[in-house]
């Protein structure tokens, strides 16, 4: 499996995980009014500001053969260090804050009157979330997803620390570029750079285009509160 396929596989899986995890966290935090709000938000955003090597270190300590998660999984004969699962974990950890922060901002922009109107009409909290808020916040959520996708695709430091460089299994495009450059193979490196450039740009443009069509097609009304 070439680095391109490995990168896409890992990025796709982590984006899906991040999408649901991030949305859940964003919704919960947007509605949470307790006194630990600031601290919780800080902790959830931490992987964004800390260097990826910190994330790599923490994950390594946890899932390594002597770490708590590693020992637990060893009971089932599962080892995730140096596997693509570890790469997914690394990508999720570093890209999660992007999804969380951006989606939460989108949720908080929604006019509370609309949410309350839905409630008075008898909608359950789940319906309010999934049928009212998510569509209303969709442009923000779509942007968040695109950003998380890009961040996962480009994740290098943490991935190298916990998934290693295993050609055919965990050698993602960024890792392939790094080792090709180290080995003096500039041509191969340049090819991979061009490929990841193309993939990232295409995804961004597609997401923006789709997003615009959504809003243009008379999408979520009532952003500014009109009925």
């Amino acid at each position, binding site marked *: 499996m070439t680095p391109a396929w490995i990168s896409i596989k890992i990025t796709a899986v982590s984006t899906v995980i991040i999408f649901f995890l991030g949305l859940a966290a964003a919704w919960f935090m947007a509605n949470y009014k307790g006194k630990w709000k600031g601290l919780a938000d800080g902790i959830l955003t931490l992987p964004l500001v800390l260097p990826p090597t910190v994330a790599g270190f923490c994950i390594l300590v946890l899932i390594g053969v002597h770490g708590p998660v590693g020992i637990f999984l060893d009971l089932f004969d599962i080892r995730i260090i140096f596997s693509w699962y570890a790469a997914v974990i690394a990508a999720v950890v570093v890209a999660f804050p992007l999804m969380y922060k951006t989606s939460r901002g989108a949720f908080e922009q929604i006019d509370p009157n609309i949410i309350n109107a839905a409630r008075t009409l008898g909608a359950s909290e789940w319906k309010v979330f999934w049928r009212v808020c998510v569509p209303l916040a969709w442009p923000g959520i779509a942007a968040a997803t695109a950003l998380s996708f890009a961040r996962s695709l480009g994740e290098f430091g943490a991935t190298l620390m916990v998934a290693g*460089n295993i050609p055919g299994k965990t050698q993602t495009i960024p890792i392939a570029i790094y080792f090709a450059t180290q*080995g*003096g193979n500039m041509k191969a490196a340049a090819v991979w750079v061009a490929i990841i450039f193309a993939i990232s740009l295409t995804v961004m443009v597609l997401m923006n285009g789709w997003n615009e069509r959504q809003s243009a097609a008379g999408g979520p009304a009532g952003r500014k509160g009109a009925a």
Partner: protein
Amino acid sequence: MKRKLLTVFLLLMMALSMFSMAACSQSEPAAEPAAEETAEPVALTVSAAASLTDALTEIQTMYKEAAPEVTITYNFGSSGALQQQISEGAEVDVFIAAAAKQINTLKDEGRLVDESIVDLLGNRLVLVVPADSTAAVSKFEDAASADIAHLALGEPTSVPAGKYAEEVFTSLNMLDTIKAKAVYAKDVKEVLTWVESGNADAGVVYLTDAINSDKVKVAAEATEESHSPIVYPAAVINTTASPDAAQAFIDYLGSDDAKAVFEKYGFTIL
């Protein structure tokens, strides 16, 4: 009022940081005048293969006595990465590689002082396992056993230890088998760390790395015929600002004092 306070606060922070940066750079020259010699202070940057870390660090202390005006800064890494840096113009004075390949590449690029190239040391290649491993591994062929799920190797194109390892496995006709379980590291020290932590079940490192770590044990030693000779050549980079000091350092590495240190760490003197 609030805005004014904020502006004042920001200006204070800027002033503070500029002040501390200035103070920091002031303290540097203060450390120099300790040298009583009338000789000019010289700074040398030495890029050296990762496997030389412990030995060269000890030699650095000794060299401070031998040549007090010289301050050595080391840059350790895989020979491939270091050679790349020099090819791209990094300001390095001396380069010590773990294989002839990287030195020859630079020589062909015309970046070395050809007369300064000298083969300093030799080493042996070993298969190591974590110190508490119970896997039945006593020869290189055992790397194919199912007990070894992850085999740590240096990345062959940039890490000489990885290239030598590949040669050994090729001579044993098992390169494809081990490729299926190989995890590639960016330098030999990383291979050692992975085996020490147990995250890799086995790895191929130099004898010098293995015997100086108590967290791994040597499972097998490669025969000299199974790989190309492990040689550590040193050379002066021709863009150096201090060619005499650079050559003097390389000469010192061939002195009896330095040789004693290398032998202590397990290197063979050439």
